[in-house]
């Protein structure tokens, strides 16, 4: 999970969806990737169509126009709110209620891009993104859209076998979340760091015993007593 602004949406089924909003830097990078891609497409086509004389240049101008104005709209409307650049950065555009981006929504936010680009280098868009509580640029506000991170998480992880013991203190929901988070992330830490963390829970034990004990408790939380 990213340390980021989260935005909660309630679905008609009563489930709370939690979206993590994408900040200006990620979005600027996605924009940069898209820009490079568009320039590349344009350069290749300029080379090919340049050989067709004036007619080729006419076609090139039309394609240049389409790349400038419709590239983001077409990709966002057809590819679940993701241009290639956004896909590479793992972000997508959605409506503020979490539903997928419609063609109209995408068109509004992309037509108003010019206002966000005012006066230079998206300065106005950058400022409104920082001011807006939901990281929206002007186009997003008008279209009521959000740019969110699309997170990829699996639940497969290594199982440590061993004893499972209940905790010796009354467990709050917060404690349980912290312990389970430790269980899921322990492979990312060195053994020494794991012991250090375990001693926060069991300061009376020595490091390796504390870790054993902590693992036993998390196993109990996950699987119950054997």
């Amino acid at each position, binding site marked *: *999970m990213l340390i980021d602004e989260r935005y909660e949406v309630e*679905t008609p*089924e*009563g*489930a*709370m*969806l*939690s*979206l993590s909003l994408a900040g200006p830097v990620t979005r600027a990078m996605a924009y940069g990737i898209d820009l490079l891609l568009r320039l590349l497409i344009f350069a290749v086509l300029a080379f090919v169509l340049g050989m067709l*004389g*004036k*007619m080729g*240049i*006419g*076609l*090139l*101008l*039309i394609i*240049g*126009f389409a790349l*400038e*104005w419709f590239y983001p709209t077409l990709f966002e409307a*057809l590819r*679940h709110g993701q241009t290639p650049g956004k896909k590479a950065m793992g972000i997508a555009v*959605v409506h503020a209620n*979490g*539903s*997928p981006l*419609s063609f*109209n929504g995408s068109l*509004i936010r992309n*037509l*108003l*891009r*010019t*206002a966000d680009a*005012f006066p230079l280098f998206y300065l*106005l868009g950058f400022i409104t993104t920082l001011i807006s509580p939901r990281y929206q640029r*002007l186009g997003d*506000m*008008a*279209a*009521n859209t959000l740019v969110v991170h*699309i*997170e*990829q*998480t699996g*639940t497969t992880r290594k199982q440590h076998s061993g004893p499972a013991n209940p905790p010796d203190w009354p467990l709050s*929901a*917060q404690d*349980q*979340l912290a312990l*389970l*988070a430790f*269980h*899921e992330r322990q492979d990312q830490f060195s053994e020494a760091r794991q012991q250090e963390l375990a001693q926060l829970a069991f300061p009376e034990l020595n490091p390796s015993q504390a870790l054993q004990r902590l693992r036993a408790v998390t196993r109990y*939380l*996950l*699987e*119950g007593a054997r």
Partner: protein
Amino acid sequence: MKQARFEQQYRPLWESLEQQLEQLEALRVSRKKRLPLDRFVADYRQLCHQLALARERAYSLELQQYLNNLVLRAHRQLYRYNPPLADRIGAFFAHGFPAAVRRQWKWHLVSALSFVLSIALAWILVQQQPEMIYTVVDEAMLSDLELMYQPEDSGSSDIHAGREGEDDVLMFGYYIKNNIGIAFRTFAGGLLLGVGAIFVMLFNGSFFGAIAGHLINTGGHEAFFTFVIAHGAPELTAIVLAGGAGLRLGWSIIAPGQWSRLDALRLAARDALPTMYGVFALLLLAAFIEAFWSPRDFDATIKYSVGAACWALLYLYLFFGGRNGTRES
């Protein structure tokens, strides 16, 4: 129930939902691989329930995250909206577009007035004091213009001579890129409290007026007016409409009325969007006429009558089109 048992019990459901989602998210799926989707909605409701349980029982964040993402994906598929495109396009041109323009006639009137008045002002100024033309155009551009619209009798190199099909395509591309780009920027410029839209209207209006006035002074006006009259109808109208739509956006921020500024902006954008679709179509039409009809060398009477017909048809359409149709919401 402990988390491990919970996962074990419901994982088959989650995996089946993931497969269904992959199919729904793909652009097309071959007939053989297609899965039945009749359980999708029921599965999705169950999933929502399980997400709520996972949160309530404080199962691990990673599991909550996984379920949350799955709900998000399913939610997007369940609530997406794609009605058939062709019907909507037909209905749009039959009544949606003219109705949208009429609904916001005040903004289009303001935009048209600022455009027409700046044309008139520049025109009169340049006709009274010919040297005023240099305040809008520099000398090099002016001599290009004069060459393009030389009086017919004085000879060779006017725009009608020596143009081939290739040039038409080149100019078609140029008009599309240039004019539609200007219209879209005018619309977006309106968001800056309307200043951007008004600026474009005044700037283009005085430019056009000054050129027209100057060409009358130098006697090139027939070549000029026979060239612009036909495509001028959709082109100038579209620019005015884009300006009006932009003003609507800007005004929603200046005076949001009973809404918050954010809501007013959203409403304005939704209101103005049909006009912009229409502007796009009008400018495509204008580019087509400008590239393939306007440079053709016909008698001035023919060009003027075709041009007049274009203006008449367009305004009949905008004023009366779709008045009997079903109301567009």
